């Protein structure tokens, strides 16, 4: 099945989300759609799936113009979306989730799960998905859950599959498996749309690339024609620097020293198991690992918001194992939390309020119990300007900002004072190229100014690009060390260590 979008324009009030977009989707081909957050990718796909009705232009399927009046029409026409956030019922089995809404029925309208299971197995075999139809969703890893979403779409007999940022939640190994499935679908004659802002993935998987910027298609090419830098510049609309510039490695004295640290999760299982390491001034230490191997607990314990079961944390030679988050903040700890929305910001607060969320008590911002809002606002505006937080006003609430700008706000807050230790967990997750470039340069600036920097990320490329030394965590332990004083940095070796292989 071939689909063509012709001159699609979609406005929301005065905002033009898509303007005269032309797009061709062909059977047996992977179309890569590249664009920054807010470039209009999601709007375009929602038009395609029938959720939005375009103000101008038409959708043509196999040569015939069609009109969609609702999301059901898109599905009926054979267009299926695999969303970034899965829509699965955790306590249902795979088969139950797949048939949800289109249940095959037996006599007297009874639910025919047997047929459902059989059909799931057939889809499994056709595309090599290897999903147990009777497994409960809540017991499955994220990568498998994504396959369930794919089965759901295939079960509804979709010929066009749209993937919205499919790799954002996957580990490097899961990404490899996911690409295999994409190729199998392509070989079976499906038309595929792959939406992302990750350059190397699109170069690897796409047969054709469209770049979207500010609601318009700004370029079309084949993978071999352009380099990643050229694509990035097309996407951002200005020259970018994907290489992280940093001064030569010249570590200072040890600032943070962790000895025999053991941390338990809430259910008393072991999150961090007897870990020791140190971070020096003028040094970036990266912690690599597949998510769920104890990095989160480690970061939270260092920031003072998670209880420590054993071992010590020292800062400038002083034992701070039991000190509060507030006390550490005063010592010069900065913390970019892993889950920005959950732990880092208050979305209903203004930018100004968020900017002082952890320093409101400081004498710069308050006298006794009385807040000095003028001072807060002035500082907030200054930091927002300096850290490129794009907003009409600091009195906007944070939920009006894009994810990238929210993250820049967090980075601005954490770096806008005299810091000693920077703890950054997934500092660029889900962000576009421009924001990533900016945040990386800020982290490097902190290192060069004498801070100790600890970076935790599941993006191996990011860890390698930023770190002077790399520690790999697996099942709560540090299993390997690369870079200065350790093994030579090798992406393949690090990936193996993350997967638990003994080197």
């Amino acid at each position, binding site marked *: 099945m071939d689909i063509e979008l012709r001159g699609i324009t979609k406005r929301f009030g005065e905002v033009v989300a898509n303007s005269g977009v032309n797009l061709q989707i062909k059977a047996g081909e992977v179309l890569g759609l590249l664009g920054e957050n807010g470039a209009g990718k999601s709007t375009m796909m929602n038009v395609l799936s029938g959720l939005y009705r375009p103000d101008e232009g038409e959708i043509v399927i196999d040569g015939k113009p069609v009109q969609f009046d609702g999301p059901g029409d898109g599905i009926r026409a054979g267009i299926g979306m695999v969303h970034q956030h899965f829509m699965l019922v955790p306590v249902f089995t795979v088969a139950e989730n797949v048939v949800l809404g289109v249940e095959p029925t037996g006599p007297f309208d009874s639910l025919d799960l047997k047929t459902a299971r059989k059909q799931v197995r057939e889809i499994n075999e056709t595309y090599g998905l290897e999903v147990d139809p009777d497994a409960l969703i809540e017991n499955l890893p994220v990568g498998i859950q994504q396959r369930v979403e794919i089965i759901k779409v295939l079960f509804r007999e979709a010929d066009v599959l749209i993937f919205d940022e499919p790799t954002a939640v996957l580990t490097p190994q899961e990404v490899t498996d996911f690409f295999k499935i994409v190729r199998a679908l392509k070989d079976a004659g499906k038309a595929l749309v792959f939406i992302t802002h990750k350059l190397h993935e699109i170069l690897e998987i796409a047969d054709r690339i469209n770049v979207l910027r500010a609601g318009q298609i700004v370029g079309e090419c084949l993978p071999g024609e352009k380099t990643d830098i050229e694509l990035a510049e097309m996407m951002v609309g200005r020259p970018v620097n994907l290489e992280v510039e940093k001064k030569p490695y010249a570590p200072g004295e040890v600032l943070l020293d962790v000895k025999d640290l053991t941390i338990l999760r809430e259910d008393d299982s072991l999150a961090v198991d007897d870990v020791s390491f140190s971070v020096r001034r003028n040094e970036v230490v990266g912690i690599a690992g597949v998510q769920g191997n104890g990095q989160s607990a480690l970061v939270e314990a260092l920031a003072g918001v998670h209880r420590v079961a054993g071992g010590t944390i020292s800062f400038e030679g002083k034992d701070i194992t039991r000190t509060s*988050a*507030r006390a550490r903040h005063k010592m010069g700890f900065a913390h970019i939390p892993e889950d920005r929305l959950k732990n*880092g910001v208050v979305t209903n607060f203004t930018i100004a309020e968020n900017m002082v969320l952890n320093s409101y008590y400081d004498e710069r911002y308050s006298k006794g*119990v009385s*807040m000095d809002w003028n001072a807060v606002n002035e500082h*907030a505006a200054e930091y927002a300007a300096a850290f490129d937080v794009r907003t*009409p006003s600091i009195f906007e609430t944070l*939920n009006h900002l894009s994810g990238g700008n929210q993250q820049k706000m967090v980075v601005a807050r954490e770096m806008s004072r005299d810091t000693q230790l920077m703890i950054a967990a997934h500092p660029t997750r889900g962000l576009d190229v421009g924001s990533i470039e900016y945040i990386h340069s800020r982290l490097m600036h902190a290192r060069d100014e004498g801070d100790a920097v600890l970076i935790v990320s599941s993006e191996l490329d990011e860890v390698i690009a930023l770190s002077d030394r790399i520690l790999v965590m697996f099942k709560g332990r540090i299993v390997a060390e690369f870079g200065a004083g350790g093994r030579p940095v090798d992406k393949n070796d690090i990936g193996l260590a993350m997967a638990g292989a003994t080197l």
Partner: protein
Amino acid sequence: MSEQQQAQTEKLAHQLLQRAAPSRTVYEDLIIVPVFAIVAALILGGLVMLATNVSLEAIGKSYVALIYGSVGSLGAWSETLTAATPLVLAGLGVAMGFRAGFFNIGAEGQVLMGGMAAVIAGFSFAGLPIYIHLPLALMAGILVGGFYAGIAGWLRAATGAHEVISTIMLNLISYRLVDYLLKVPFIQKSGRSDPISNAVLDSAQLPRLLDWIDPNLRVHGGLIIMLLAVWFCYWLLFKTTIGFEFRASGENADAARFAGMRSGLIVVLVMALAGALAGLAGANQVLGVLERASPGFSAGIGFNAISVALLGRSHPIGVLIAGLLFGALEAGGRQMQVDAGVSLDLIGIVQSLIIAFIAAPLLVRAVFPWGFRGKAASRKE
């Protein structure tokens, strides 16, 4: 950073300090929607009354009475303000809890306990001058109400017990505790065998403000205390570090904890403050209106306070307006009974309809689609 860049950043920072003018949506939400809500409720209430065989005459008469009885005369204003005062005070307490993310159902019990403390202080200590005795009695209400609610806060902080359950249980305890206390010989009015307290001495009564015009005007000094409390809550919530902590914890407790705020302390503080305000509402009733305590003297103020707080969107000014609306409905409802002979139950339905419509702005926008140009504000709460 070059000088040019710096100048540019400064200019940008200056631009970021501009505030956007309040949108049409804000204006519609604050003024037009409530007006239409009242109209819709009156029409629907009229239909309900028609359905129960109330004549059209009586309906017209009762609506005139509703307005006349709430704002139509000095006496009506006095009654509206008298009824609104405790609702605003207790509503502020509930709203403070909401702001910090705590669903305090216990205002009723806190009103009772604070009121009992104020009564006891109010009939004891004969011979004190009013400028000592009255503040003493008020303070007794504040402290005991605060302490009583603080129990729920402490249970939450220390054991994780959910405040909805603990405050409901504290309500039940307070009813029986009041029954018991009212039978204790030194509290119970002498010569009576039913549970009723001694009368508050003159020196501890909130003075009536307008009795020099007409002795039946009941509005009393509690009104001034209430207005001070509104100002205090506004200041605390929006101008202090404590209020900042309350609001941050209420909006996102995890982020507040990550920002180094002490959640346990905040729970206890906010619950104690909520109880203090509810206790003050109880003191206001016994020292300004009832002059004594009898079983159930709270008369549901603590529960209406929850509606007042929600309707006022947990904003001190909003709570003041919502409390005045409740007070006006109470005073006007009485006049509906007097003038039109409409039954108390029907009046209750009309009052509830008005409140329900105001609480559902989206419903009003749907019923009256014209006249609303602003986009409906999506509220995340």
